[in-house]
């Protein structure tokens, strides 16, 4: 199974992400409702992909990316940013911090699936 960590403070948004990705049968989903919870889960169990919101109540997505990239064991982990912040500055900051890909909300199932397929293909092959 491919373990996916879906990080967003909105439960509906996490559910929507999972609903879109459910088309890929080998994916298994874990939810995290905050950036801190995401970091905690990543420290305790291995994941193959993180779908990450930027704007969250405790620490933001960029900080999560920065922290993850500073860890040796997480350096290669694919991180897909899915955010309402569609501006170029946010994209640049996220990619500079080490995010693997960046897409904006609202997203379509096709859009997020193709990003995820590309990331998983690049990382290990589906």
């Amino acid at each position, binding site marked *: 199974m491919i373990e996916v960590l879906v990080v967003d403070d909105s439960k509906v948004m996490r559910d*929507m992400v999972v609903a879109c990705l459910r088309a890929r049968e080998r994916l298994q989903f874990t939810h995290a409702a905050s950036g801190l919870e995401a970091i905690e889960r990543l420290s305790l169990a291995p994941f193959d992909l993180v779908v990450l919101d930027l704007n969250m109540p405790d620490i933001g997505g960029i900080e999560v990316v920065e922290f993850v990239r500073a860890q040796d064991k997480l350096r290669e982990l694919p991180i897909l940013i899915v955010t309402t912040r569609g501006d170029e500055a946010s994209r640049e900051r996220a990619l500079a911090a080490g995010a693997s890909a960046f897409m904006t909300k609202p997203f379509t199932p096709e859009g997020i699936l193709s990003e995820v397929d590309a990331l998983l293909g690049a990382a290990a092959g589906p």
Partner: protein
Amino acid sequence: MTQSVDVREFLQGFLSEADEHLGRITSNLSTFEAAPSQSHPRAIGELFRSLHTLKGLAGMMGVDPIVDLAHAMESLVRRTERRGGRLAPAALDPLVAGTKAITQRVRALADGAAIQPAPESILLALERLADQPGDDDPSASRAALSNLDPAIVEKLGARELDELRQALERGDRVLQVVFAPSPEKAAAGRTITTARAGIGGVGRIVKVLPRAVPASTSAPGGLEFAILVATTATEHALAAAAGVGPDDGTALASAPAAPELGVDDDAFDRASRKGIVRIDVAKLDVALEQLSGLGIGQLRVREEARALAETGVDLRRIVTQLEEQDRRLRRMRATLLGLRMVPLREVLEPLPLIVRGLRNTTGKAVELEVDVGDAELDKTVAERLFPALVHLVRNAVDHGIEPTDERRRRGKPDHGRLRVESVAPSTAMLDIAITDDGGGIDPAAIAKRAGRAVPADDRELLDILTTAGFSSRDQATTTSGRGLGLDIVRHTIEALGGALELDNRPGLGTTFRIRAPLTVAVLDAFAFVAGDERYLAPISVVDAIVEVDPAEVVRPPRKSGGAQPVDMLHTRGDVMPLVSLRDVLGLPRMGEETRALLVRRQGRRFAFAITRMLGRHEVLVRPLVDALVDVPGISGSADLGDGRPTLVLDLPRLGASLARAREALA
């Protein structure tokens, strides 16, 4: 989203989250309304996040007008955040208007109605403010925290630094607490999320910094969180709540010397499990309904036991058990009802913003004071009471408080005062007074307008004011006069089992007092049969149940046509109209009406003849209609445990409307 995922599937989730965010937005805007000139970094941060999340969700749901509004508000708020949390005075109005516009569109989505585009005027006002240059200078607050470790300071944003600075100015100390996650802790339900919840109970978490550390037995994930807390709590209180050890907790910035904190794993457990769950009230209703079914089942068992006992079987031990079971059911009910309670203070949070809007539309100077202490009330009562309260507040500003020049003439201060106050409630009733220091009500003018005699007292004055359709102004003003009328306000309160009272002081002001039960969900009621139908009536309104002795009924001779005279019942040294409930409800004439329920309303007594009594039940009442679609005499429906809905009759109201009809005929 397109074909393969249906957004409708997420509508309920969206509505519930949108509601939560709108509540948070209103509450944070109220913070600025209360102290406009101050900086509120935390409120701004929360505003920003709520708007941002709302925007994202609305985008997924394809509701562009909400996206537009949230985006414009968010841009303005972001600007404010850069200014250190100080909101430009002109910014509050458009933010409030934007919140209202979003709320309307969320409602429309919930009702399946068409969604109006975002009002251009609001968008323009927001954009104009967001574009204004400001003094973005986070370095100012950075300097103020010179005694903090620079390694930590550089990881903090302007908002967090502001928050720290304010905390230190207030006399809080800043402590750092370290939490290292492990699989064992996670399995026991101890995570960074529960740790934050525990610490949040005694202090304000300003920032949580994740730190990579060499993997060890104490930090097997190679991770620890440094949690920055601003707190006034004593070392012991903080240690008990957070459970940090001597090596885990350090003071970072404070006036007094840093304390050493001791480990207490049990305390940590206790504190960290203090989580919060949000529950849909509908689910609590289901639980209460199931409990009510249990109660009815219990009642049947008790009746069976009684019948069995009459045959001579010794059931003492079973009866003891049944009594114990009764007590448990009552405790369970109290617990469930407690879960539905919300603080009145939270319910009234939108009031300052509403009064602010009224100030703008009426041009009157008004100061609002809300002092409701710790009173709590049932969520359902709160939802039904709130529109009535808002109406009374609007009325007070619109009709009560005079324009400034008139106030000066009367020797009153320029600012009108409006006070919403809750007197310490009894265990069952809520008591809210809405007082203004305006001109009061002129009884003679009201009487003239209504074409009635001048009322003798405030009770009669209130009766006239709450006559359906009565309005004290020729034309509806912009703020009052639309929406609920005072008659509906009164009915809403009475339908809840409460009462509206008036204390009118002409020239000096008016007080409306609302008394309402803290909960409506469970009703102690009599079940009875009228005609061939089952009904319920609250025990609280029934003065007595009497046998109808034909010898005590005076039946005036019937007339050949038109309205029939009313039978009178002589009972308990009193004479009162005896009305056949069967006839009133238009039911077939089945069975003798051998009993009567005595009911009193505003000093008048009525006897309602019924076919037979079925007993006393605790039932869960569901409102049948909202206050605007009024079914006279019926206040809701309940389930007696067999799945058949039984109507709950509002007998006092039924009696009053019959009396009015008779007066009209006479």
